[in-house]
């Protein structure tokens, strides 16, 4: 994944709380063996309602989504992150995120920005008419009206996002430490370190 620095553009003012991953991408879309094309199924049940916010022309290319508390709760499906990306959404702003979704978002270069509800309320208002800007390096969300909201982010995740680092590549650099740990486990807990293989 490439580096992430700033994200600027219209923001879909969804505002809804507890948006679960079944809402982001329903299970029947998961029968794929690739990561592509899931945007078509994104928010299918919400988009079935005439006049829904996703289908308004001004948000057609919006890179940001604003939602309520506990965004991405439920299933661990990374297809939720892939569906957002396929729709061009590269940042979600919400008061809180489920742990698994937050991890999946990060691994796909999607910024999950947590801000207090009062800030979200203001951004929902701005998003009706104007664009929003997110600066990862400065850790801030700004509007054309001089609003500026600071957000926190895990320093390791920030570095990975800014530099577009390959996490597996980073871990493989610790290969020797993993091997040492495995040797230790093999000695202390051999039945756990090397299981029997008797089935299938």
């Amino acid at each position, binding site marked *: 994944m490439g580096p992430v620095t700033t994200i600027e553009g219209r923001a879909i003012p969804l505002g*809804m*709380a*507890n948006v*679960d991953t*079944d*809402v982001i991408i*329903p*299970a*029947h879309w*998961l*029968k*794929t*063996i*690739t*990561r592509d094309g899931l945007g078509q199924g994104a928010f*299918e*049940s919400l988009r079935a309602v005439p006049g829904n916010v996703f289908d308004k022309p001004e948000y057609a290319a919006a890179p940001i989504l604003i939602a309520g*508390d*506990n965004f991405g*709760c*439920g*299933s*661990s*499906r*990374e297809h939720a*992150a892939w569906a957002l990306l396929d729709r061009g959404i590269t940042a979600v702003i919400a008061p*809180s995120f*489920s*742990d*698994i979704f937050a*991890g*999946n978002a990060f*691994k*796909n270069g999607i910024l999950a920005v947590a801000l207090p509800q009062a800030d979200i309320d203001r951004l929902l208002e701005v998003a009706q008419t104007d664009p929003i800007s997110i600066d990862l390096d400065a850790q801030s969300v700004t509007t054309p009206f001089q609003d500026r909201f600071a957000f926190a982010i*895990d*320093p*390791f995740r920030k570095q990975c996002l800014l530099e577009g680092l390959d*996490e*597996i590549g*980073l*871990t*493989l650099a*610790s290969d020797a*430490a*993993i091997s040492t*740990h*495995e040797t230790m*486990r093999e000695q202390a*807990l*051999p*039945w*756990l*370190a*090397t*299981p*029997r*293989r*008797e*089935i*299938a």
Partner: protein
Amino acid sequence: MASKPRTLYEKIWDDHVVEQRSDGTCLLYIDRHLVHEVTSPQAFEALRLTGRTVRRPELTLAVPDHNLPTTARVDAAGRRLPIADPQSAAQLAALERNAPEFGITYIDAASVNQGIVHVVGPEQGFSLPGATIVCGDSHTAAHGGLGALAFGIGTSEVEHVLATQTLQLRPAKTMEIRVEGQLGPGVTPKDLILHIIGVIGTAGGTGHVIEYRGPGFETMSVEGRLTVCNMSIEAGARAGLIAPDDIVFDYLKGRPYAPRGEDWERALAWWRSLRTDDGAVFDKSVVIEAGVIEPTVSWGTSPDDVVPVGGCVPSPESFADPAKQAAAVKSLAYMGLSPGDKIEDIRVENVFIGSCTNSRIEDLRAAAEVLRGRHKDPGVKWAIVVPGSGLVKQQAEAEGLDRIFTEAGLEWREPGCSACLAMNPDKVPPGERCASTSNRNFTGRQGPGARTHLVSPAMAAAAAVTGRLVDVRKLTPCKPVPA
């Protein structure tokens, strides 16, 4: 040096830290990895594209479950029947191809060992106390019932575990849910966990690992513990666990992957140390009184939308939080319910007994006890029982449970995830209700427009018999169930 008292979670975590970076991120070693057909194809493909291999193939076990139809898998001559849906067939074919290519043990769809990953892991002794266990499925939390640190991961993490046998993580906060007293007769571990989710909410455990503690768990079966821990994710916690004890050790002894002989004795000695130390401090603590819990039913589209079966559908105004009020209005419209409707007046057209939450032998026994000598109500059009694995199916048939189900008018199916998430042909029709022993009542979860009411297996059986949501205690003489 006297070490600081630690919680069970902290002990397992510390034991698996390979490296800790200055910012607090840890490289955590993973002992066991379960793989199914839905969340793994992209991970294997990425390994191929980057030329990476699987570091420790013997620590991963692959089994298909999500897509499989629950109708017959082989014909009379023992030949595999094709899967009609081409996408489902392609996903299964991908796992069948990927597992051997990367040296991973694969349990075939037609094997008696096949089943839902979260039933198969404990049943095979692949999941063990004190282990770190992951799977690309959020209900991996279930394995915490054995005293393991088990949690769901995304596909990028599946790839990371395959390539490195580790994950980069930060430690979670700790949360104690202390259950005081015992569950009343006819009240089950499913009712307990639905009640807990109702109390703490779907984000109550976010950022935390839950340890379930208290006297009720000391007598709870392994099946019950797996049910409770399974739904930790519905309370927002990525993992939930219960300290392992003799009930767990007796359950595991002799299972195919479990240690044997001298290894078993060494394992036991270590497992007995896996308890939260006296004086250990949790970041958050919640006390639940078991005695007041009734059979519990969900009324809305979020797992914390629960009420006792004797209660009524709440009005949106009864919630303090405006977001929750707005959600309740939407939920009621979707569910076709009005504030004040009595739960016991709600009619159901479908019954689903199954899923990684409630498809183990004890669950099927509980449902069969209610259905024995009874027949489903004519208003119930579709009622299926889907065992969690081929071995559960075999055991149930040996006990004659399958005949009780079929004589009561329920269908007896092949194992898999089935109508819990409706990826296979088992779906609830739009606008219809289902009394379901599964774990999520989300909009469209059991099929577009489907209306799910989460219940225990005994309550699902009672719904089949009466054609409505009903307090199972009115139907059957109840024996006390350990909390």
